[in-house]
C-alpha cells in the first residue's frame, strides 16, 4: 500500500513539474484552447490526485471545516470562476506572480474537489454544478459572441472555438452528471463523510 501511494504521488508530482516547465507552459499557453481546456483541467486533475492521496488523519482534521463538502466546493467554484476572467487569462502570460498563483489555486481547487465531492451528496453537488456549469456556458457564449477580442494575446478564431468548447463541455457535463444520478439511483443521496 505504502509503495502504491508513493508511486502515485510521483505521477502527480511529475504532472505538476512537467506542466510548470517553461517549454510546456509556453506550448500550452500559446493557444487559448490549450490554455483553458488542457492546462487548467490538467492542473485541477493533479490537485484531485493529491486530494485523493491525502492521508486519512488530515482528512479527518479538515472535515469539521468542510461538512458536506461545502467549503471545498466553494473554493473550487471561486477559483475556476476567477480564471475565466479574460483579463486574468491575458495577464497570467506576462506576470510570473500571477502564473504561480494560477498553478497553486488550480491545484488547491483540485484538492478541494477531491475531498469534498463524495461528502457533498447529490443536493450540494447539484448546487455546485448549478453554479459552475451555467457560468461556463455564459462565459463560453460571451467568448463566442463578443464582436471584439477579449484577450489581447489570443486570436479571435481561438477565442471563438474556446467559447464554443466551453458551451459544449458545460452542457455535456450537465448531461453526464444527470445520467450518473439515474444510473446510480438513490445511492448517491446518502451523505458520506
Amino acid at each position, binding site marked *: 500500500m505504502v509503495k502504491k501511494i508513493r508511486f502515485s504521488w510521483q505521477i502527480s508530482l511529475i504532472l505538476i513539474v512537467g506542466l510548470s516547465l517553461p517549454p510546456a507552459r509556453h506550448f500550452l499557453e500559446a493557444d487559448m484552447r490549450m490554455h483553458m481546456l488542457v492546462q487548467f483541467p490538467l492542473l485541477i486533475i493533479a490537485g484531485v490526485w493529491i486530494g485523493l492521496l491525502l492521508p486519512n488523519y488530515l482528512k479527518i482534521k479538515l472535515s*469539521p*471545516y*468542510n*461538512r*458536506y463538502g*461545502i*467549503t471545498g466546493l*466553494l*473554493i473550487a467554484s*471561486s477559483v475556476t*470562476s*476567477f480564471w475565466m*476572467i*479574460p*483579463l*486574468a487569462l*491575458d*495577464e497570467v502570460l506576462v506576470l510570473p506572480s500571477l502564473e504561480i498563483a494560477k498553478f497553486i489555486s488550480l491545484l488547491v481547487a483540485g484538492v478541494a474537489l477531491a475531498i469534498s465531492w463524495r461528502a457533498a451528496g447529490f443536493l450540494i453537488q447539484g448546487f455546485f454544478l448549478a453554479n459552475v456549469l451555467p457560468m461556463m456556458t455564459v462565459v463560453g457564449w460571451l467568448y463566442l459572441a463578443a464582436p*471584439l*477580442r*477579449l*484577450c*489581447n*494575446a*489570443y*486570436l*479571435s*478564431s481561438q477565442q471563438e472555438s474556446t467559447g464554443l468548447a466551453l458551451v459544449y463541455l458545460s452542457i455535456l457535463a450537465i448531461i453526464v452528471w444527470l445520467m450518473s444520478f439515474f444510473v446510480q439511483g438513490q445511492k448517491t443521496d446518502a451523505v458520506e463523510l
Partner: protein
Amino acid sequence: MAKTLITSVLVLMLASLVWLVYTQGLRVFTKEQARQLVVKQTQPALPQVILLDATDSTHALRSWTMQQNKLVIVEFVYTRCNAICRSLGAEFQQLQAIIQKKNLQSRVGLLSISFDPEHDTPKVLAAYAARLKADANIWHFATVKNHNQLATLLNFFGITVIPDELGGYQHNAALLLTDSQGKLVDVADINQTQVILDTWLKKYASVGK
C-alpha cells in the same frame, strides 16, 4: 457545522474581495479596459520614438504631436490588413469628414501608425493614404524608423500584435488621444467615433484655439 459555516463565509468573502480588487470594482474584465483606465489615470508622456512618415521625413513622436499643437487621434494599423484596420480606416475617414465639415483642422489631427515597417515603407504608406483619400492637412501616416523601437511604441500604447493563420496580424484596435502637451490622455473603443470626438472636443476645449 458552525466551523464549516464560518470557513465557508470566509472563503466567500475572500473570493469576493479578490474579484472586486482584481476587476477594480467590477469595472475591468479585459486587458483593454485595464489599459484604458490606467491611461486615464496616469496620462503618460509619449515616448520620443522616431517615426518615418509617408513623405519620407522623420519625426520624434512626442515633439511631433506637440508641434502640431492640437489633439491628435492615433490608431495602429498595417496596410495589408483587411479586417479590423478596415473598420479603423473607415472610422478615421468618418472622423476626417467631420473635421472637414466642422472646420476643426486646427484643433484635431489624425495619425495612423503602421506596426509593419518591413512592408509599410513611406511609398506604401503614401499609396495607402491615397487609397483612403486622406487629407494631408489632417491625417498623417507613419511607421517606426528603427525597427527595434517598435516594441517600445506598441508597449507604450498597449497594442498587442499577434500573427494570424493567414500571414497577417491581429491586434487590438482603439482610438488613442494625445494632447498638445505630448501626453496620451485617453483611449476609446472604436465604433463610437462621433460621440467620442464631441466629448474630447468639449473636454479639451482650449487645445488648438
